[in-house]
């Protein structure tokens, strides 16, 4: 079965759409584009005209939101609940203070500035306000109303992208009509429909920019989602501090645990992303937590040591 592929850039990252029936590629691609345009308009943090920006700009007021933004907020709150707050949508202020306040291509282009202010000749330490916690958000799922208290800023970046991959895969399958589809948004992967014989081949790497034909581990997955979270990408510097995009809500600063990259397979890309992000934040407790969730996972320590968890296939053949 020949697999057809289309790739482009959207949401500040790479998009890949694969279909098992090449005749449906154009329709699948169009459907994915529409979903991503809707997602960008609903919950981009970097568009002043997005619904999310409007919500963050109106603290203390109950705002009725679109079904898509309501779904994204619902997903983010579920993520926070299931991870005991390790993945929290109220990190918006913290990540902005850390310096990630624009599309990452522009953040990366700034270089090592702005430097942190100096006090008595020494660079002061970066500090952020305490992350308020997801319980601060008053969200009525049925009425689709959201109240963001003053001083709280929502960021749906982590769960939002994975949710978008799930939605895009379903829309692509519906548009293609037959066969199976795979959608990758910057390495967050969702599959739908009938997979190719042997499953979808997925190369596991620390950076989604690694070419699919590069050396490294390849797994075969028939359905669901695969997501990778890593502190080795989306890094920037402020003064002498090297920062990354995975915020630990406990400290309001980038996570500093023993794992630099975590990949998880789950029933959906959203659940895989929630687990991989939470594992980075949870640090040493991540392995036991992933085992308790029965989620197959691959964890890379900061020194390069790799752990295979649950039903994740170990290339050496040794069960975890």
């Amino acid at each position, binding site marked *: 079965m020949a697999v057809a592929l289309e790739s482009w850039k959207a949401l500040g990252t*790479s998009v890949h759409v694969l279909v*098992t029936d090449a005749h449906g590629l154009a329709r699948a691609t169009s459907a994915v584009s529409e979903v991503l345009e809707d997602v960008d308009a609903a919950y981009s943090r970097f568009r002043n005209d997005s619904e999310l920006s409007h919500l963050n700009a109106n603290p203390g007021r109950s705002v009725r939101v679109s*079904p*898509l933004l*309501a*779904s994204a907020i619902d*997903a983010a709150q*579920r993520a926070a609940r*299931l991870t005991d707050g390790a993945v929290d949508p109220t990190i918006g202020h913290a990540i902005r203070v850390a310096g990630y306040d624009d599309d990452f291509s522009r953040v990366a282009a700034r270089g090592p500035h702005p430097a942190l202010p100096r006090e008595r000749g020494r660079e002061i330490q970066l500090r952020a306000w305490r992350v308020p916690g997801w319980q601060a958000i008053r969200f009525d799922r049925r009425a689709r109303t959201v109240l963001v208290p003053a001083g709280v800023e929502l960021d749906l970046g982590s769960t939002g992208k994975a949710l978008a991959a799930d*939605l895009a895969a*379903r*829309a692509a399958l*519906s548009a293609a009509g037959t066969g199976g589809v*795979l959608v990758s948004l*910057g*390495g*967050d*992967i969702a599959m*739908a*429909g009938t997979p*190719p014989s042997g*499953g*979808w*081949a*997925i*190369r*596991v*790497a620390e*950076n*989604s*920019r*690694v070419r*699919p034909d590069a050396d490294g*581990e*390849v*797994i075969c*997955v*028939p*359905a*669901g*989602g*695969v*997501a*990778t979270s*890593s*502190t080795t990408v*989306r890094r920037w510097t402020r003064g002498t501090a090297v920062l990354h995009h995975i915020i630990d809500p406990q400290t309001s600063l980038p996570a500093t645990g023993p794992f630099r*990259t975590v990949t998880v*397979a*789950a*029933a959906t890309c959203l*659940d895989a992303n929630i*687990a991989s992000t939470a594992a980075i934040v949870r640090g040493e407790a991540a392995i036991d937590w992933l085992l308790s*969730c029965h*989620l*197959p996972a691959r964890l890379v320590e900061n020194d390069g040591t790799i752990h295979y968890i*649950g*039903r994740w*296939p*170990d290339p050496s053949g040794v069960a975890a």
Partner: protein
Amino acid sequence: MDPLTPTQRDRGLERLRRLTFGATAGALVAVVGVSYVAAASYAGTSSANGSATAADTTTTTSTTTTTDSSSSSSSTSSSNSLQPSTQAPTTGSSGSGTVTSGGS
């Protein structure tokens, strides 16, 4: 105190009957009203058994084809635990259409 005439007694009994009926009707209205307000204010959460059902539903829904973003996503995010895939990944070169999963 003079004894009541039959007419006075009948009027008193009628007044008592009306009061009893009014109090009962008022209590019923109050119970219905308070119940409605309570039901609307406290939607409740799924029990453990309910979550298992939701999880099953999520798995089923994830394989269906729908273009309704809101309905499909809400079913995705309704389960009360992270859902493992029904089939675990395998190693190998038998799969098709390689893409890379990595940080971005």
